């Protein structure tokens, strides 16, 4: 028989947990949900736009009753649970309804804190929490004129804005002299106040409310200094308190919230709690991003994949008032150990402050133009070293010299037919429509439904910005740490660490030791694990060809019609008449459809059938060619110019160097493709400064540059070091490649990798520390002993492997 799961609370946290649970273990539980509101599940963070008349209740419903029915969930709506009987494992509702549980999830949320002052219970005094509050505010706005909002925080200002939109004159009363002091510093708060005043909002601050005065209904609000304000409506928005009474009465340990551990279990391990009612590592949360992260971990634990842990959330905030953009995240005030980067343009109404410690962002406040908020937030969460971009960082991501993407941040102002994802032809309007109609919340959802940002990924930032823009403010775009894929909660780094520490030597062993959620993974994790194991255990790990993408399995590039291309290696881009004649002969023999001179200085043969591949390889191999690995996450080409042997400007023999570099590195597998170049002089004809590693020869030796990219997002290299001899260059090449191989995430090019770990760190490892450089280079050479087997030769000679290229059977019709 199925176990019974009872959920108390039909809000965002509880239902999100149920949704996550249904995703990973749809049949694990019989689920019963109690909710004290008479509705299905709705998006509470969108109540502000409802109050402002910008959205309707229907538009913010997340799950209608049909959804509960479709998923076999019993919904008791409008029934408040009044007792948890932990001995008999039952919950009891106000009307006597009882439900038995094997596991219980408490998601009772929070309620507004009501100031304990005289008059608090008068008619016309409301809070701002649920649909009922919004209804009564809208009703009050129809009758009365003056509203007083007590509380100048996020919620208070959103309520005040909504009431103004409903036609009331509104005064915000705040106990501090800074608005939103938990999110803003003084300059930003003052800009906000000025802006709201221009829109007609009034402020009384600092002011402490003493009493609410009136006979049956509210008439006035009186303050400690004796002043009074007329009011037809008073909204209390001074904070929220976790709803813990139910848990407390059941004897579950509570402090400010219900205390939970990293798996969201309370002190009674059968009972879980998520959302605003919980206290985790001393912190309570009132924003949606943490709830979603908790929901995911809790669902995993309920599904008995007990490896996910919730470790707290770094939150960011936006204010949902149309036309006002502010953003705040992390430690935005700083202390003696931090420094501040500030940009202020009062007449444009723009303010940006970053709090920085050791070249890493600790917090951010932005006002006026917040388009880069999610970028700063990512840099902060990932702990990215910003020393390389300090000069420009305040101007935003668009000014980091990424040509071709300068306008990408204007997402909000874009027309609906603006193309966001160039790979899949997805326009802004399509994405917005999918987000609103399908109720999408995460980047993954948007990718699955629209395909936007699911190919090359260069528009990911845009899609995330769009998501934040549509879904609303305090939603954060990605979990704290991104898991490798949906099959695990472990990150790339954690997986690699465990492979090393537990000496895991094949894919099944990794999946078992790390509690993989799927029987044999998915294309994402299998390919990553195969690489990590190969990198960690050279010569020992048995490559799993079924965990490689077809191109690497067939040692050729699959084309759109299912045929393949074959590209033999041409060392350093050099060739000879004899080689060219052989290629021509082979191309004619096998009926190659198209011959192309590639961007990497070699010749590609296109339109070959799979079963032709072993034969053409054999012919090429016999003529002395090896695979060009043009299909792999591997060393691709070393592009060169003709250097001082021929060129009148050449300073060194760049062609010879390029060939040596290629002989050293060919055959090595890397996290993503790896391209090199060697230019004979600073005119740089081999375009070395947009390669993963580029050498520019100068009169005094060799300049080594790293981390360039000429692909989806152009990035010029960073200068790494000046070398005196070819031997020195080769040692740096080996050390740099090995550092990248051992440290970068699978499918991470060197450019984003260097931006993530910081050039300073890379220099520390291989420039400043000679011993470490030599050790890295040595490990690279050791791995190359096993990697430099020409796969074409292997395939051509190995009957068993070759047979897979043939049809299993040909059936005559």
């Amino acid at each position, binding site marked *: 028989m199925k176990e019974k799961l009872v959920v108390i609370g039909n809000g965002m946290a509880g239902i999100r947990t149920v949704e996550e649970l249904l995703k990973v273990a749809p049949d694990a539980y019989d689920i019963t949900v109690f909710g004290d509101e008479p509705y299905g599940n709705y998006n509470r963070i969108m109540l502000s736009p409802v109050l402002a008349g910008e959205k309707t209740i229907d538009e913010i419903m997340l799950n209608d009753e049909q959804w509960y029915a479709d998923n076999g969930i019993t919904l008791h709506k409008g029934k408040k649970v009044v007792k948890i009987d932990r001995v008999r494992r039952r919950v009891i509702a106000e009307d006597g309804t009882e439900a038995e549980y094997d596991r219980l999830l408490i998601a009772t949320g929070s309620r507004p804190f009501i100031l304990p002052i005289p008059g608090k219970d008068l008619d016309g005094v409301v809070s701002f929490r649920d649909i009922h509050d919004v209804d009564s505010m809208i009703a009050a706005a129809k009758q009365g004129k003056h509203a007083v909002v007590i509380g100048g925080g996020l919620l208070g200002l959103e309520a005040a804005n909504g009431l103004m939109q409903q036609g009331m004159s509104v005064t915000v009363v705040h106990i501090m002299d800074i608005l939103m002091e938990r999110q803003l510093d003084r300059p930003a708060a003052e800009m906000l106040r000025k802006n709201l005043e221009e829109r007609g909002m009034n402020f009384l601050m600092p002011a402490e409310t003493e009493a609410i005065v009136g006979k049956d209904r509210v008439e006035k609000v009186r303050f400690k200094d004796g002043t009074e304000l007329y009011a037809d409506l008073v909204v209390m928005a001074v904070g929220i308190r976790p709803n813990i009474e139910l848990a407390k009465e059941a004897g579950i340990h509570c402090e400010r919230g219900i205390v939970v551990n990293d798996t969201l279990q309370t002190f009674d391990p059968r009972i879980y709690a998520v959302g605003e009612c919980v206290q985790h590592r001393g912190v309570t949360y009132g924003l949606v991003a943490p709830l979603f992260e908790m929901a995911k971990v809790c669902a995993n634990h309920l599904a008995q994949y007990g490896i996910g842990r919730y470790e707290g959330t770094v939150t960011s905030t936006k204010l949902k008032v149309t036309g006002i953009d502010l953003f705040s995240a992390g430690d935005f005030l700083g202390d003696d150990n931090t420094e501040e980067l500030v940009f202020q343009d009062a007449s444009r109404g723009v303010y940006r402050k970053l709090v920085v410690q050791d070249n890493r962002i600790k917090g951010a406040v932005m006002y006026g133009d917040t388009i880069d908020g999610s970028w700063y937030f990512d840099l902060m969460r990932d702990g990215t070293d910003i020393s390389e971009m300090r000069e420009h960082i305040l101007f935003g991501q668009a000014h980091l010299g990424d040509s071709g993407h300068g306008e990408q941040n204007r997402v909000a102002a874009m027309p609906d037919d603006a193309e966001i994802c160039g790979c899949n032809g997805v326009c802004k309007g399509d994405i917005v429509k999918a987000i609103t109609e*399908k109720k999408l919340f995460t980047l993954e959802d948007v990718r*699955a*439904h629209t395909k936007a940002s*699911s*190919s090359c990924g260069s528009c990911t930032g845009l899609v995330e910005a769009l998501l934040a823009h549509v879904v609303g403010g305090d939603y954060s775009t990605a979990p704290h740490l991104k898991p490798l894929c949906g099959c695990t909660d472990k990150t790339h780094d954690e997986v690699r660490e465990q492979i090393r520490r537990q000496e895991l030597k094949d894919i099944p062993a990794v999946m078992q030791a790390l509690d993989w959620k*799927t*029987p*044999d*993974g*998915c*294309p994402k994790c*299998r*390919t990553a694990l195969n690489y990590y194991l190969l990198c960690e255990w050279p010569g020992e790990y048995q490559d799993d*060809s*079924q*965990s490689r*993408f*077809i*191109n690497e*399995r*067939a040692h050729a590039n*699959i084309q*759109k019609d*299912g045929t393949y291309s074959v590209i033999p290696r041409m060392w350093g881009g050099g060739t000879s008449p004899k080689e060219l004649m052989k290629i021509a002969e082979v191309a004619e023999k096998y009926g190659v459809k198209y011959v192309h001179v590639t961007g990497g200085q070699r010749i590609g043969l296109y339109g070959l059938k*799979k079963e032709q591949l072993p034969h053409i390889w054999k012919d090429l191999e016999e003529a002395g060619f090896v695979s060009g690995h043009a299909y792999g996450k591997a060393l691709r080409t070393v592009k060169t110019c003709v250097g001082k042997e021929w060129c009148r400007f050449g300073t060194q023999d760049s062609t010879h160097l390029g060939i040596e570099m290629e002989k050293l590195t060919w055959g090595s597998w890397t996290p993503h493709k790896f391209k090199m170049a060697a230019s004979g002089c600073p005119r740089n004809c081999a375009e070395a400064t947009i390669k993963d590693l580029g050498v520019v020869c100068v009169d005094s030796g060799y300049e080594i540059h790293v981390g360039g990219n000429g692909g989806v997002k152009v990035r010029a290299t960073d200068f790494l070091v000046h070398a005196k001899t070819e031997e020195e260059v080769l040692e740096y090449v080996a050390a740099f490649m090995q550092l990248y191989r051992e440290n970068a995430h699978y499918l991470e090019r060197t450019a984003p990798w260097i931006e993530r770990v910081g050039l300073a760190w890379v220099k520390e490892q291989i420039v400043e520390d000679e011993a470490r450089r030599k050790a890295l280079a040595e490990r690279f050479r050791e791995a190359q002993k096993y990697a430099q087997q020409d796969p074409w030769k292997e395939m051509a000679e190995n009957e068993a492997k070759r*047979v*897979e290229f043939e*049809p*299993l*059977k*040909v*059936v*005559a*019709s």
Partner: protein
Amino acid sequence: MSNDWIEVGKIDDIPRKGARVVRTGEGDIAVFRTADDRIFALRDKCPHKGGPLSQGIVHDTKVACPLHDWKIQLDTGEAVAPDEGCAATFPVKLEGQTIYLSAKPAEGCPNG
């Protein structure tokens, strides 16, 4: 409806988590072998842009198309939501080590 079973090979001719192609006059059929030695057969054409499913990565009872990474269910031929479409399935059976296939697609899918 009776199936005309054709012997196409032995189970070990197909690698685990892999596939081989049976070529017929009406087009290629991909025969898959899962990690737990179950055999499935699909039209070797992704409903999206016609990619050869036989060349994809097999995981659980799904295959990921090598062209644009659509996931197709091996047992039903249906694309995994939210993608929509299907590849025709073909009856297939294992007797001892021998795989038998019927070249008549099951009904219901336009790319049969």
